[in-house]
């Protein structure tokens, strides 16, 4: 057997965190601890890039598959990647080291534990994206909640306990139904192996209920309207690195789940429920954009904008068009980069001024120019300006939606106008204008590590805006075959 590269990706961060557990946490050792964590996550990133390098783009079959017996005869430990999941793995391994670098200023207490939480979280996330068995997927999917719960609950702001519980309650509640559904799938088909299930198919009479059960879990995690209210609270209270992980990766698990499981396993039900998804996505796009317009807290604004952006994603997935699904995947990758960067941008000024309120700021462009330029870039990417990755995703989603349903595309396109309004207004109030608050004069521009993080996020945002070809090449065959499988299922029903 070859080198188990996927397992290595999943395990490496955990192994790194083991080193941390057995190290002392005090001020002297903090930098060592950070280097250990950083080293682990960077090695993992390089490993994932190597995986991408080895990846064969001409097939939609799962690659680097590892299949080991676990609970004998019932559940196997089966992992592997295809064109859809590999990008999310890379996104995870890319964002994590940046999070670790960013903890410098934002995390003051129990740094060691914080880094352990982040590394373990990375393991779980990669596990989610690589699982090829429903039970394994469920375990990773739910386990991911725990480190996030701790990150919000321990390192969060003043209302952290409320937010952490809200986050936990919401997500757990949705997931319980998914567990029931997974068990029933086992009883119905006798397996939880995703690849086998793809071949077997699930009897259409069970699909609707199963779909709804999965949906209840994914909808909360996405989050879709109306189960989105945990997100703004969680973001506001979470420390910067937590917000980044939450926005950049955690939200993508659900989008990935929709593509892999809802479309893949329950095509007939997906077809039936597409109008529901459309309606909820449109409401998310329009309502939360309007809400974002009125926010006074920067983090809340960006959180609400995330809900709107994920509305585009769910919309695109259920168009079942090549453009729509590819757009959704690219939108998720792009949102992973851009929302991460925006939360970091908020974190930068928060660390200095200890306020997230928009009206604390204003006129800082001449004081911290480097920051302002980068913040501008991410603002533009968030509103989907051509030349940034945000445009490609959004435009393709709308294009796909238009092929499927005119009305849906028209309403969703209105969200693009609102997106420009709330992002630019935010930027104007924070960065431009007259300097009113004299405390702002003390602001210092980005330090080396902040600069490095934001530049690392800016480069792919721009690069994929101008040249998204590597992304398209990776996902094309997988998405195409998924759609073919979906359509043939519909015809055969």
């Amino acid at each position, binding site marked *: 057997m070859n080198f188990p590269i996927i397992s290595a990706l999943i395990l490496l961060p955990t192994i790194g965190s083991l080193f941390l557990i057995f190290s002392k946490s005090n001020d002297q050792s903090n930098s060592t601890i950070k280097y250990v964590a950083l080293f682990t996550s960077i090695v993992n990133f390089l490993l994932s890039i190597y995986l991408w390098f080895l990846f064969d783009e001409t097939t939609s079959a799962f690659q680097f598959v590892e299949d080991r017996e676990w609970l004998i005869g019932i559940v196997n430990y089966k992992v592997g990647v295809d064109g859809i999941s590999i990008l999310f793995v890379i996104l995870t391994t890319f964002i994590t080291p940046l999070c670790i670098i960013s903890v410098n200023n934002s995390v003051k207490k129990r740094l060691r534990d914080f880094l352990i939480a982040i590394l373990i979280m990375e393991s779980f996330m990669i596990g989610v994206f690589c699982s090829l068995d429903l039970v394994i997927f469920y375990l990773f999917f739910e386990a991911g909640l725990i480190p996030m719960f701790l990150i919000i609950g321990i390192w969060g702001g003043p209302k952290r306990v409320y937010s952490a519980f809200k986050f936990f309650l919401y997500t757990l509640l949705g997931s319980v139904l998914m567990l029931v559904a997974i068990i029933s799938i086992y009883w119905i088909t006798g397996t939880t192996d995703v690849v086998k299930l793809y071949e077997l198919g699930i009897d259409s009479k069970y699909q609707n209920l199963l779909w709804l059960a999965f949906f209840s879990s994914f909808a909360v995690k996405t989050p879709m309207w109306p189960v989105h209210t945990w997100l703004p609270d969680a973001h506001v209270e979470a420390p910067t690195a937590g917000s980044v992980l939450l926005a950049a990766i955690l939200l993508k698990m659900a989008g990935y789940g929709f593509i892999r499981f809802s479309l893949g396993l329950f095509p007939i039900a997906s077809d039936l429920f597409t109008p529901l998804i459309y309606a909820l996505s449109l409401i998310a796009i329009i309502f939360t954009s309007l*809400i974002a317009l009125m926010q006074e807290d920067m983090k809340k604004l960006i959180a609400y904008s995330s809900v709107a952006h994920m509305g585009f994603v769910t919309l695109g997935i259920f168009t079942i068009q090549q453009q729509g699904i590819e757009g959704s995947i690219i939108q998720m990758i792009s949102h992973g980069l851009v929302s991460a960067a925006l939360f970091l941008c908020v974190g930068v000024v928060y660390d200095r001024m200890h306020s997230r309120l928009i009206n604390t700021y204003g006129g800082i462009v001449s004081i911290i120019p480097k920051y302002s330029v980068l913040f501008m870039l991410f603002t533009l990417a968030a509103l989907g300006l*051509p030349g940034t990755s945000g445009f490609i995703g959004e435009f393709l989603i709308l294009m796909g939606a238009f092929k499927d349903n005119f009305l849906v595309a028209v309403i969703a396109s209105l969200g*693009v*106008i609102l997106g420009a309004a709330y992002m630019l207004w935010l930027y104007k109030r924070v960065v*431009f*204008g007259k300097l009113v608050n004299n405390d702002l004069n003390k602001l210092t521009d980005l330090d080396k590590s902040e600069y490095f993080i934001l530049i690392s996020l800016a480069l792919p945002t721009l690069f994929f805006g101008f040249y998204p070809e590597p992304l398209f090449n990776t996902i094309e065959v997988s998405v195409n075959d998924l759609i073919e499988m979906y359509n043939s299922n519909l015809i055969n029903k």
Partner: protein
Amino acid sequence: MELSIITLPLIASIISGFFGKYIGDRNSEIVTSLLVSISAILSIIVFYNVVFNQYEDNIIIATWINSGTLDVNWSMKIDSLSSVMLVVVTSVSALVHIYSIGYMSHDPHKPRFMAYLSLFTFAMLMLVTSDNFIQLFFGWEGVGLCSYFLIGFWFKKETANSAAIKAFVVNRVGDFGFALGIFLIFYLFGTVNYNEVFQQIPSVVDKRLNFLGFEVKSIDLICLLLFIGAMGKSAQILLHTWLPDAMEGPTPVSALIHAATMVTAGVFLVVRCSPIYEYSELALNLITVVGMTTAIFAASVALVQTDIKKIIAYSTCSQLGYMFFAAGVGAYNIAMFHLFTHAFFKALLFLGSGSVIHAFKDEQNINSMGGVWKKLPYTYVLMIIGTLALTGFPLLSGFYSKDAIIEFAYLRDNTTGYYAAGIGIFTAFLTSIYSWRLIFKTFHGSYNNKSIKIEETHESPLVMLLPLIILSIGAIFAGFIFKELFFDTNFWGNSIFFLEPLSEEHPPMWFLLLTPILVCSSIPISYYLFVKNKDLPNSIVEINKPLYNFLVNKWYFDELYEILFIKPSKKIGLFLWKFFDVKIIDGFGPDGVSSLIKKFSIKANKFQSGYIYQYAFIMLLGLSALLTFLIIK
């Protein structure tokens, strides 16, 4: 060589934007001006090749988006149409770069300014040389972005920031239509490449589709959606509100972006899509109507404005209306001709007004000027040339293009055409009046400025005057020299499509003479009104107070939009957040559930009292209930 036309401005922008701090202000100015000037010279060479050697090319630079059947390339399409735009964009841009060296000499952020100008030039070139709709959209949003940056360049000014956002968001409304148009094109044809789309047009002429419950011809729908985009960018009525506000930006910006280049992108779009528009009678009529309404609306507002730049801005709006109605009556080449001549004289007027504003130390109100023509002789003469050209004074450039538009409207020989011609003539008269009002109020009469002494006003430096002089040469001769070329449909080749050949006839003599006579006679009329007998305009205002207020308030568009869109959006947003999210979803959702559980557990708590006799009693009760149940069963 062709590629360097596009890349040089981008390189200039990067150098000045990222390294301006290291190479210094002066070097940034020199580098950007030089590179853009080289680009202008190359453009002229390309234009020369296109005219005399029938040069055409479609260069594929790289793949951009490749998703399923959607295949979009970074490309550079050179044909008659794009070569004309290349010349206009790069040459005006180069002159504005040079002018800015003088105009922005007191500004602390020169490299940033130059970088924006060059970046704008790059985006505009991407727009005009695209061979597909999505790259066009890239340029389209790109110029919008640079316009946003440049309007808000003086970021400390609250009004400038608001104007910048307004420009971007209003343009997004237009882009909303434009994007839907692109989606529809892709939906119908499976491609977004111009040539491939245009080839398929004749086959879908009669195709109808159901759009949001309306049964429409698909061609009409494409044209209307694209036109919404054009209306936003070219500030046509309903979506024009951003353009006057955009005058918050530095004046060179107004000359480059809001007169010569970006705002003409909408006209360019319609002309580029002439193979589609030619098949849509409905859309063409609508364009004519929108164009002429904008022309007369903007001219009427310009009559009473007092800000020198806003007058010129409304004038631009009005002239864009002319271009649209030229396109609407099928005279695409004349629309391009007017676009071409307008670029020269309007940039000249803007830069000239910049020179005036410079002289008055940032004063823009024409009521606070006057009597300085001897102090600013060059600016004065150049502004007069610009005005003559704009108003269509015989033999200057505006005369050839504007009169041609009116003639073709007349020759269209249908109701819309006659209306358009009539309104065109009347608007030409109004144009003349407000333009001369501007000149007379600014340069003649008594000196009205209280804060600066007349001795302190000064003529601009050579670096500012030189571009003006070059533009004035264009304003005088461009019409005369290029009229044959632009009228000649062979020159346009495949780049403009005429379903039926343009009429070769000529309107009757009296009609031809009407406009020039009105235009010439308006000079003495204006002189009388605004210099000799100044009380007369005031008394006219007094008599027609409601009309005056209507015009001064720009037909109340801003107020209307505030009530219709902005306030409701904010209110709904607040409602959805405070009431819907917080009260309903959270109230009944997580918070409600958790408080319910809390209440329930308090109740449940009471059962666990700890007293044995209570427990025993309950057990007894349960036991007897169970027994009863079994017995009955």
